[in-house]
């Protein structure tokens, strides 16, 4: 077990979590020193490049979906858009989306004070969809090499987080699933990507149980879920405790394990400067 004095933003590919975390210069600062993980910055840069390329959908005819939509909006009259079945389907899909938006706008407001639509829920749902679409994470291998079966990291992370939160007092945060960080090499060939994966999960826990006990419990739940619900081959599951919060019935401040006097406020957040506890499955 390692206790670090700094808290670093998550570098995982959990889209929602990452979106909320500050990052400087495109590469998050880390509690893990560059000397320990020299390829992390390269990994992030490579992932960003890959994601930039992967954000837009390329149709089988070679056109980008964004180009087709833009041409449709601008009415360029490009004959290809009408002759190509793929572009025609994309244009039709855009038309249906527009119809839906118009339907929503034309329907009755859902509030009772006559102020119109509360767009908060709609915005949240749309952003959930966009995040999942644009930040699906890595494809992770399922089954044998010859089977060519995959699961996207964001989908697998949902299962991992749900398993962790099945334990009372545990709140799951960022989750990274992929090759061991120290072995990550950008632009790996497919065969390389099929190695057993490595799970890194951040959790906030209540102060009612010893950290090692909680970490072991989380690890066991995650291991069972990954095996029973996904069928994914996992080499290691590392649990990073990033926060300890007081149970509502417990008003006393909590000292850091092994660090007497380093208490935190009753808000349940880590002190300025941060701390974290990592319990590696190695």
């Amino acid at each position, binding site marked *: 077990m390692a206790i670090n004095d700094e808290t670093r933003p998550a570098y995982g590919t959990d889209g929602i979590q990452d979106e909320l975390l500050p990052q400087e210069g495109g590469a998050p600062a880390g509690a893990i020193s560059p000397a320990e993980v020299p390829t992390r910055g390269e990994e992030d840069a490579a992932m960003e490049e890959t994601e930039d390329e992967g954000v837009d*959908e390329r149709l*089988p005819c070679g056109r980008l*979906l964004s180009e087709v939509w833009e041409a449709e909006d601008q009415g360029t009259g490009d004959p290809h858009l009408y002759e190509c*079945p793929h572009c025609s*389907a*994309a244009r039709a*899909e*855009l038309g*249906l*989306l527009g119809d*839906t*938006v118009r*339907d*929503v706008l034309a*329907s009755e407001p*859902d509030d009772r004070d006559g102020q119109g639509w509360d767009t908060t*829920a*709609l915005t949240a*749902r*749309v952003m*959930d*969809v*966009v995040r*999942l*679409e644009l930040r*699906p994470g890595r*494809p992770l291998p*399922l*089954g044998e090499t010859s*089977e*060519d*079966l*995959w*699961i*996207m990291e*964001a*989908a*697998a992370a*949902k*299962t991992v987080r749900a398993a962790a939160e099945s334990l009372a007092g545990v709140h799951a945060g960022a989750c990274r699933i992929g090759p061991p960080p120290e072995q990550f090499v950008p632009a790996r060939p497919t065969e390389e990507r099929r190695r057993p994966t490595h799970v890194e999960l951040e959790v906030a826990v209540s102060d009612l149980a010893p950290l090692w006990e909680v970490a072991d419990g989380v690890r066991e739940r995650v291991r069972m879920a990954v095996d*029973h*619900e*996904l*069928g*994914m081959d996992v080499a290691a599951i590392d649990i990073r405790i990033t926060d300890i919060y007081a149970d509502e019935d417990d008003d006393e401040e909590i000292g850091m394990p092994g660090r007497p006097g380093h208490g935190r406020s009753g808000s349940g957040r880590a002190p300025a400067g941060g701390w974290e506890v990592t319990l590696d499955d190695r």
Partner: protein
Amino acid sequence: MTGDEREQRVAAAAAAALQVQGVAFLKPGLAGRLRASASALARTGRGPDRRRTDPAAGVRVRQGTPWTAEVHIVLQRGHRALDVTRAVRSAVADSFGETPVRVTVTVSGMV
């Protein structure tokens, strides 16, 4: 290969994948997902509007030696991802009959 042939392959592969237990639906495109999400909100409590969802949105087929079929599925919770993807792979391969095909199956989400 004509466009019709490819379309038939796509439709057959999509139908085969959708028959597999544990497949909620095939991964729709971004527009389809936004549309379903917005529709669900407008039709409170009745769930996503799948009437307009393209059933073959998550299937791509390319001719070659062998043919390749990429299938993106959304998994129904309670079903094991590995078992479902294996079943989808087998079903899609069967939909090609005697034609050799390399099938890739990816779980893109869960509901």
